[in-house]
């Protein structure tokens, strides 16, 4: 389509909105209500422009010509048009510079501002506010409104995490539309009408995992992130574009820090991964970084007491102890959200010490690299049949949103030179959802089941039997008649079918194999959901033990004499404490005091995930850059730093002693230049496992408690006060029958030994929990799956508060 914008001729695709045509031509139109990934509604009327098009004569079918020029005559629309809701037409002429357009823009700014409080000096959005910018660029600077402005509540807490200033709201409806269109949880709406309209919600808080995004998309300071309220002004923050290490999605993040402290986290833009959305766990779960009890200096145990030391002293101390040991007597374990560079360092250190045992944890029993036909998140968003096994809303929440994209059936927009289209006219308010394409299986009722055409709650631990049956074309036990046949037909008949499976399947090699067999049978792509940010990368680059019996933490029980762990807490498991105490050297590299630091010989201060530089591989195999935000972590170092210090103490120059040296090694194995990685990342092909045995022969399907994934990192929950206030303490979800059986009631705080770890939780009685299998959030040291809990030892710590 040929379109002329202010004299600039453009060739555009059919269906493009006029606003994108204007931007594509290099001109600007102001807008408030449009948002890149949501439906255009034309409510703010800011983007008005003069639009005209030639007409064809009805009778002859020829263009009506201008008598003077002989060219097709342009018929202008009688009114100015909202460009965000107008589609381009052949030969269209758009004018955004004429006087009447400027006048309309002036008056819309004036109208928008008459009820806006103009308290920019105290507004957290000040300096990064769309209204501020637009008022400056397109307003007259004067107001003729002389009456009292509308007075409404200034700080309505929508939830513990989001504060709403109703006076500042300009009714663009982005937040209301967001909830309906993106996560599908309609928890926010306009109340009243006309000049009295305000945003409101009924009941407590906002029950959704994706509430924080509305603070990003609010064009004014009406919706604010409570964790960062009044913490600083926008121009004072150091913005770091990085990648989320909170889950395996690899979502783009912007970490805003000021004077060495993380003040807030906003979502970044990565069109193929998270678009511009992140979940609440990622957004609000950063406060622990600045916790007062963070370990900021190395500590060495002298005379039974941990005493502060320099890095050099600590490294010397470790080196001396290590000298007397054989390589195979030293174990090294990293948490699975360590970067690739840290992994390289750990491998090099292990190699240096001899036949070192190196591993990352949590690592599922089944490999994440199995199954050649892998789905990317874009594949998922364009799938026309999806089978979900597990609970992606909690495991990798972005997967949940991409599934909901697929339900809408609108493909990802093509990018313009100015980026994502501002108004994608294919998106509509209240689009019908193709729920029939989604099937959800889980051992308990999950949130995603609400959006699924068919769903089934199976018995926990039955994954292997279910998929063995499906693989051989049989009906699994306990399923409704015809369920399997229908599922198989749907997946096999689809153009693009994707099977998403989570930790419950990965916990068993058998289940995983059976599922992959079923996927091959129906020709579906697969997407496993790893437990942590770099699980895929660490497996891909071979941060793995050389033999299955060296797997962490089982290796602790063998001939091991020294153990170096990074961000893990092996001593939480009471069954291991005895053995750990017998070690000649226990080094723990961590952020906070825990059971392991109590018995460790050396405690090294660790950097948080926001302070590290490096790269990770997300669940779809995309290598993404992680950049450090300027956070004051004292003397803390990442594992690369540990390797460097130990190398110095040992007198060795090890691979992975710095980012550069690690990247030299990675360049060889991945054939990628990690220094010049684009922000959007690069998809890497999955190769066969680099080396070693990753398969753990753990038996699945036993146990009486199901550890379930959670978007919240429960290990840090107590240090994230806002998140804690919003979501409460770690819940132990019980079926009412089980609650009766154990004699506990809703709201009781209990302690319970779960697989050797004493877990503290608050009882939540819900009919959604399966009978006989209570649900408890998993931890990095206790990944998802069935475990044995000792319910005889369940103790009530605090009784439920009486309901007033």
């Amino acid at each position, binding site marked *: 389509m040929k379109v002329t914008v202010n004299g600039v001729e453009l060739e555009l695709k059919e269906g493009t909105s006029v606003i994108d045509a204007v931007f594509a031509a290099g001109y600007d139109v102001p807008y408030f209500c449009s948002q890149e990934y949501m439906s255009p509604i034309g409510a703010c009327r800011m983007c008005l422009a003069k639009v005209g098009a030639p007409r064809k004569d009805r009778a002859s079918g020829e263009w009506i010509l201008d008598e003077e020029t002989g060219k097709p005559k342009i018929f202008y629309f009688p009114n100015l048009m909202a460009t965000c809701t107008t589609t381009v037409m052949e030969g269209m002429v758009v004018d955004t510079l004429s006087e009447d357009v400027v006048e309309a823009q002036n008056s819309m700014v004036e109208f928008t501002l008459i009820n806006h409080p103009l308290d920019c000096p105290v507004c957290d959005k000040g300096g990064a506010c769309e209204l501020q910018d637009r008022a400056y660029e397109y307003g007259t600077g004067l107001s003729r409104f002389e009456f009292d402005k509308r007075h409404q509540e200034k700080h309505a807490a929508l939830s513990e995490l989001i504060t709403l200033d109703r006076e500042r709201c300009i009714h663009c409806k982005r937040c209301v539309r967001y909830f309906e269109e993106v996560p599908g*949880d*309609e*928890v*926010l*709406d*306009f*109340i*009243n*009408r006309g000049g009295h309209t305000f945003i*409101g*919600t*009924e*009941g407590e808080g906002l029950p959704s995992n994706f509430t924080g995004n509305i603070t990003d998309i609010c064009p004014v300071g009406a919706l604010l992130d409570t964790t960062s309220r009044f913490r600083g002004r926008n121009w004072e923050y150091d913005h770091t574009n990085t990648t989320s290490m909170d889950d395996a999605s690899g979502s783009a993040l912007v970490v805003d820090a000021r004077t060495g402290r993380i003040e807030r986290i906003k979502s970044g833009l990565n069109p193929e991964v998270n678009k511009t959305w992140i979940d609440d766990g990622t957004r609000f779960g950063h406060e622990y970084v600045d916790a007062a009890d963070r370990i900021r200096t190395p500590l060495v145990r002298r005379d039974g007491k941990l005493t502060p030391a320099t890095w050099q002293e600590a490294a010397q101390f470790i080196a001396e102890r290590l000298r007397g040991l054989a390589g195979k007597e030293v174990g090294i374990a990293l948490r699975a959200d360590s970067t690739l560079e840290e992994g390289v360092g750990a491998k090099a250190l292990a190699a240096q010490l001899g036949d070192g045992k190196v591993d990352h944890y949590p690592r599922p029993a089944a490999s994440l690299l199995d199954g050649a036909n892998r789905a990317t998140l874009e594949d998922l968003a364009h799938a026309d049949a999806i089978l979900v096994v597990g609970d992606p809303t909690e495991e990798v929440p972005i997967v949940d949103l991409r599934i909901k994209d697929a339900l809408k059936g609108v493909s990802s927009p093509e990018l313009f030179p100015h980026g994502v289209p501002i108004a994608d006219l294919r998106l509509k308010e209240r689009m019908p959802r193709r729920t029939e394409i989604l099937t959800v299986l889980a051992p308990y009722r999950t949130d995603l089941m609400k959006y699924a055409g068919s769903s089934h709650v199976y018995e926990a631990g039955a994954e292997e039997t279910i998929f063995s049956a499906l693989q051989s074309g049989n009906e699994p036990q306990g399923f409704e008649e015809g369920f399997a046949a229908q599922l198989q037909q749907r997946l096999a008949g689809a153009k693009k079918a994707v099977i998403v499976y989570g930790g419950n399947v990965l916990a068993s090699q058998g289940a995983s194999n059976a599922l992959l067999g079923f996927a091959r049978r129906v020709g579906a792509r697969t997407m496993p959901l790893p437990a942590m940010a770099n699980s895929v990368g660490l497996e891909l680059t071979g941060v793995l033990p050389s033999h299955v019996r060296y797997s962490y933490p089982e290796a602790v029980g063998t001939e091991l004499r020294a153990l170096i762990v990074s961000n893990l807490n092996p001593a939480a498991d009471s069954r291991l404490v005895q053995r750990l105490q017998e070690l000649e050297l226990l080094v723990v590299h961590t952020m906070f005091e825990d059971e392991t630091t109590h018995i460790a010989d050396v405690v090294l201060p660790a950097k948080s995930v926001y302070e590290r530089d490096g790269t990770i591989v997300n669940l779809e195999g995309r290598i993404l850059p992680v950049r450090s935000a300027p956070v004051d972590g004292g003397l803390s170092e990442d594992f690369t730093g540990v390797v460097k210090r130990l190398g110095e103490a040992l007198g060795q120059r090890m691979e992975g002693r710095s980012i550069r040296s690690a990247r030299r090694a990675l360049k060889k194995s991945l054939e990628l230049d990690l220094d010049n990685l684009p922000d959007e990342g690069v998809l890497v092909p999955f190769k066969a496992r680099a080396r070693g045995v990753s398969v753990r022969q753990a038996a699945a399907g036993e146990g009486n408690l199901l550890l379930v994934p959670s978007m919240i990192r429960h290990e840090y929950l107590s240090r994230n006060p806002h998140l804690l206030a919003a979501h409460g303490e770690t819940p132990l979800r019980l079926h009412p029958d089980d609650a009766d059986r154990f004699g506990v009631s809703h709201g009781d705080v209990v302690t319970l030994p779960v697989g050797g770890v004493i877990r503290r939780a608050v009882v939540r009685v819900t009919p959604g929990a399966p009978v006989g299998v209570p649900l408890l959030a998993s931890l990095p040291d206790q990944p998802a799956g069935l475990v044995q809990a000792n319910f005889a030892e369940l103790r009530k710590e605090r009784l439920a508060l009486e309901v007033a």
Partner: protein
Amino acid sequence: MVELDTLQPFFADKQELLDEILGRYPEYGRRSALMPLLWEVQRAERHINDARVEEIAEIVGVHPTEVRGVMSFYSTYHDHPVGRFHLQVCSTLSCSLAGSDELYDHLVEELGIVNGETDGDGYFSLQKVECVGSCTTAPVLQVNDTYYERLSKSRCRQLIASLREGELPEPWHARGGDADAKGGEEQ
């Protein structure tokens, strides 16, 4: 009393009515039943409280916020109880030209309450409303669901007197023009 009532779900013993209302709409349009359900509650309880909002949300399968959003959009749903007789004076142009301002002043004087108020014993509520569609028979006073049209001073006094007695009188015939059966023929 009212507090106790709210504990019992409104539609718990009205399954037939519920089925009838839901049955009016196609299966994919379940949400359409939202407004009729609100009407049912309002007719019975003269307002719709938070518990009812939640109950209706549950029935039509949406979040209570959505119900609140819809309910607050329309001007005839009340979240606070109105009196037994809800007097609504139309104050838009045609009625205003027929003396609705004076009518309103008269009611204020007579009842001792002003726009938006309910009297102490919950008997009368007075409200100025916008056009109720009785322009040719102005001024009009709507009492609950009944229109009292061409409300002259004497008729108004009679009406208030019988409302005080607890009686909602039959509205009188008031049309004019062709709406008057014979009117058209006579012209």
